């Protein structure tokens, strides 16, 4: 009846019970709060059934922030354990639990923080930047979000019921095969990643068609904002790489569930093939999370330098080049797996080549500042930190790309320092920059700037303290994923420093979280009185009110050059005329939510081998899809009168600020 789910699954080690109880407590509080404020109907109508990309983007960010809490908590536990677990002491985590923690850390951060961040940003910004009122496939977009949320929730369920994978964020076989990991952990990981992966693929298709088909009149490809270009280069990566992940996890699933021999040791299986396939997905994946952040910085630097982006064409070609080459570098993740020198050298050279356009981008950003007027607002501070850390980490990447050097530092803490420099220095700082930059657009008020700065300094100094010593630790022979080591290695003092750095980051992250709520409470004081353009922006999203009206643009703009809003401000383009017409927008639908919920149940049922439930939930998904694909596309109409009223209200508010 319950598959292999027994009451044992609810028993945890003492170190886990605290997390479980606080999570359940938090969930109950949230439900209580919503009931007390009588907001269930509002939640349903405005958020859970919405197909508006602005709302979906905000939901993505909310899930990202929650999952960041989880992933960062994992990180603190890892560093605390490693600072304590020397010689006779074995820290406070058992080996198994520790391995769960770092597997969960990696999985959460990549799949549910980084991926969520980029799709959230794209939902919010792409339609506004291309002058569109919606995305190409509003329902598919919503579905992509709910599948993402479903995968995220499945990992949270794994904290309370049973345990998560202990095989790292990529779960190499044979360790992740049924022989060495018979428990539910790997299965939780497989289904969470599979479900979220399908969501990503669908969202990728959606944004690719949106950018190709829904740009406003006059916006040719070379007149698109650079963030949209970065999204356009990222989406083919999503669309082409995620199916590889889907197929590979599918084969691992078949190995585990049906006794197949894709990656087993006996039966003729080839686990090295898994390593190849997973990295054939994995390397494009890291560019998927990185390229949009390049786009973010390409928007922020010009705005706060009061100058156009230097070398726009060069930047575009650099993006295309990076996207293309990212498919032929994957072997650098396992130079040590015994390939011949010729093979290793080919991939080494390809990896070095990809560094060239990245370096070009850095120079272009620097020269955007040249003879500009640079304002060091918090987005610009994040760019500054990005420049310092990402460049350094990129340099260590070139070191890693040389096989003989890699032989000595592969899987050591040197590697961890490198990719965290890219992931935190690049992706996370990019996300923070984007968050502070576009926050006023979607809420109408600013984040508290002072708190932003304190958080920034904690992050920068904490990051350096937590990750620079890791390079040295790698040179001292410290491998990754160790839950214990001898005092004679001499690593302990460095691990303590690293732990202190992690705590400084914790302070920074705490300031950010409280800063968010503080800013919301104090929003009247920080209100944006400019009517939607607080930073003197250059692209179309700054030409409408903050927060934008539901239809984005009352009049679809026509553009004839790059930076269309600047063109209007400098008198090089006419101010759009106010000729309104009826606007049709797609209506809400609960199908995305339902399919997400059924997917969650399906993933859970498959993990615990509850076959009847798996079949029921799968059939339910099919039924939902059929229902959705059998109805007509219905729209709600916003009449000319209503549009006039909304625009007039906005104009009245503007007048009142003067």
């Amino acid at each position, binding site marked *: 009846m319950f598959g292999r789910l027994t009451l044992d699954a609810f028993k945890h080690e003492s170190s886990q019970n605290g997390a479980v109880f606080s999570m359940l407590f938090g969930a109950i509080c949230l439900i209580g709060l919503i009931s007390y404020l009588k907001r269930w109907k509002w939640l349903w109508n405005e958020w859970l059934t919405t197909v508006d990309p602005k709302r979906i983007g905000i939901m993505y960010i909310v899930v990202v922030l929650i999952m960041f809490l989880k992933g960062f908590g994992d990180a603190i536990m890892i560093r605390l354990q490693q600072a304590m677990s020397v010689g006779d002491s074995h820290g406070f985590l058992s*080996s198994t639990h520790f*391995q769960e923690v770092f597997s969960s850390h990696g999985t959460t951060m990549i799949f549910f923080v980084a991926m969520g961040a980029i799709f959230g940003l794209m939902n919010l910004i792409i339609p506004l930047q291309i002058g569109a009122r919606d995305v190409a496939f509003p329902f598919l977009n919503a579905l992509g979000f709910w599948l993402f949320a479903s995968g995220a929730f499945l990992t949270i369920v794994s904290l309370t019921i049973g345990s998560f994978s*202990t095989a790292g964020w990529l779960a*190499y076989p*044979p*360790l992740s095969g049924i022989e060495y990991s018979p428990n539910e952990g790997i299965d939780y990981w497989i289904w969470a990643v599979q479900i979220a992966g399908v969501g990503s693929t669908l969202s990728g298709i959606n944004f690719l068609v949106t950018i190709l088909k829904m740009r406003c009149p006059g916006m040719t490809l070379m007149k698109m904002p650079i963030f949209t270009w970065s999204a356009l280069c990222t989406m083919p990566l999503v669309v082409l790489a995620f199916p590889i992940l889907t197929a590979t996890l599918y084969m691992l699933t078949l190995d585990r569930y049906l006794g197949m021999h894709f990656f087993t*040791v006996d039966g003729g299986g080839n686990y*090295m093939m898994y390593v190849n396939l997973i990295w054939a997905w994995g390397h494009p994946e890291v560019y998927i999370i990185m390229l949009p952040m390049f786009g973010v910085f390409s928007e922020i630097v010009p705005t706060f330098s*009061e*100058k*156009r982006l*230097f*070398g*726009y064409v*060069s930047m575009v070609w650099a993006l295309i080049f990076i996207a293309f080459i990212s498919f032929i570098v994957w072997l650098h993740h396992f130079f*040590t797996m*015994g390939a011949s*020198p010729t093979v290793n050298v080919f991939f080494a*050279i390809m990896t*070095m*080549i990809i*560094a*060239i356009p990245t*370096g*070009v981008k850095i120079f272009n950003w*620097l020269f955007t500042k*040249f*003879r*500009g007027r*640079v304002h*060091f607002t918090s987005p610009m501070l994040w760019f*500054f930190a990005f*420049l*310092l850390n990402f*460049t350094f980490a990129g340099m260590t990447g*070139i070191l890693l790309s040389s096989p*003989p*050097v890699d032989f*000595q530092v*592969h*899987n050591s803490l040197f590697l961890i320092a490198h990719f965290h420099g890219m992931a935190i220095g690049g992706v996370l700082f990019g996300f923070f920059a984007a968050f502070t930059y576009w926050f006023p657009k979607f809420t109408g008020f600013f984040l508290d*700037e*002072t708190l932003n700065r304190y958080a920034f300094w904690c992050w*920068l*100094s904490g990051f350096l303290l937590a990750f*620079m010593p890791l390079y*040295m630790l790698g040179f*001292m*022979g410290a491998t990754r*994923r160790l*839950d*214990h080591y*001898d005092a004679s*290695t*001499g690593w302990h003092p460095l691990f303590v420093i690293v732990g202190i750095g992690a705590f400084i980051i914790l302070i920074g992250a705490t300031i950010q979280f409280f800063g968010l709520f503080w800013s919301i409470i104090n929003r009247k004081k920080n209100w944006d*009185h*400019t009517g939607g*353009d*607080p930073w*003197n922006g250059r692209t179309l999203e700054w030409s409408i009110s903050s927060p934008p009206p539901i239809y984005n643009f009352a009049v679809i703009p026509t553009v004839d050059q790059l930076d269309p809003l600047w063109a209007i401000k400098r008198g090089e383009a006419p101010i759009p005329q106010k000729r309104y017409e009826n606007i049709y927008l797609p209506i809400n639908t609960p199908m995305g939510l339902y399919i997400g919920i059924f997917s969650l149940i399906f993933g859970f049922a498959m993990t615990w081998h509850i076959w009847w439930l798996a079949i029921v939930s799968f059939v339910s998904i099919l039924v939902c899809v059929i229902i959705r694909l059998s109805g007509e596309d219905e729209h709600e109409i916003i009449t000319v009168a209503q549009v006039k009223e909304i625009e007039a209200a906005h104009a009245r508010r503007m007048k009142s600020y003067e």
Partner: protein
Amino acid sequence: MLRGLFKQKMTKKPVFYMLLFTGLILLVILIMQPLQILHFREKIAVLFPKGIIAIEERNLLFIIQILMLIIIIPVYILTFIFSWIYRADNPKGNYDPDIVDNRIAEYIWWGIPCVMVLIVSILTGIKTHELDPFKSIESKNKEMTIQVVALQWKWLFIYPEEGIASVNFVQFPESTPIRFEITADAPMNSFWIPHLGGQIYAMPKMKTVLNLIANEIGDFRGSSANISGEGFAGMTFVTRASTDDDYHQWVKSAKQSSNTLNLKEYNQLAAPSQNNPVETFQLKDLSLFDQIVNKYMHPHKE
């Protein structure tokens, strides 16, 4: 003029303090590194290696590092200079919003990295072939073969030429090229002795080869660099490069060990265990390693 910028108590020269503070942090990090290196010198295996392979690998690292610094240092300098000169409240910034392109600049920063990558690529290409782990090391001393099996969660070393075996301990004479033949009877591991050279994966059903040589006598730490399950952190082993005499002494005492190792005893040894103490065995089955490699190649004959 940036419209609608938040009200903020601007202290005098905020950009100056920002650059100063950042510069100080970077300086501290920069100073910490050589201090760390001085203090921990003996433990920093990759930078102070004891074998020719590791020395070559380290030298390549240094060369590539220096080449990269040629690009990175100007980037850092430009970052600081541009941030200072072109800050918004500097009237001498020569504001010119229409400088958006410059062909010569693009040629320079596409071109110089290309040249750099070319140099590093050629260097890498040559060195990768030279330092191929499968390639024997040229030496006046005769090469010795040691077979390695990664188990859960210990390392088994088999000496087919001597007829002995050991767990979590390997000894050989210094200045002798060692050919490690490596496999696993466990999930993927990675065989790594950082003082002597780079690692290579230890994989079931596969045989990888790692050629290393110790330039001096000493005890070096070895470990597994790929997660293989619960006890993986305890998979450390001691590598001892000794004099010829000491080596032969050790082999003699191992041959007199009360433990024996044939296939049956191997199967007992291979059962999961953690933090195994050092043990030596008399090797009763010289083809044990090949049997382990081939263990999963064919269906079990019942």
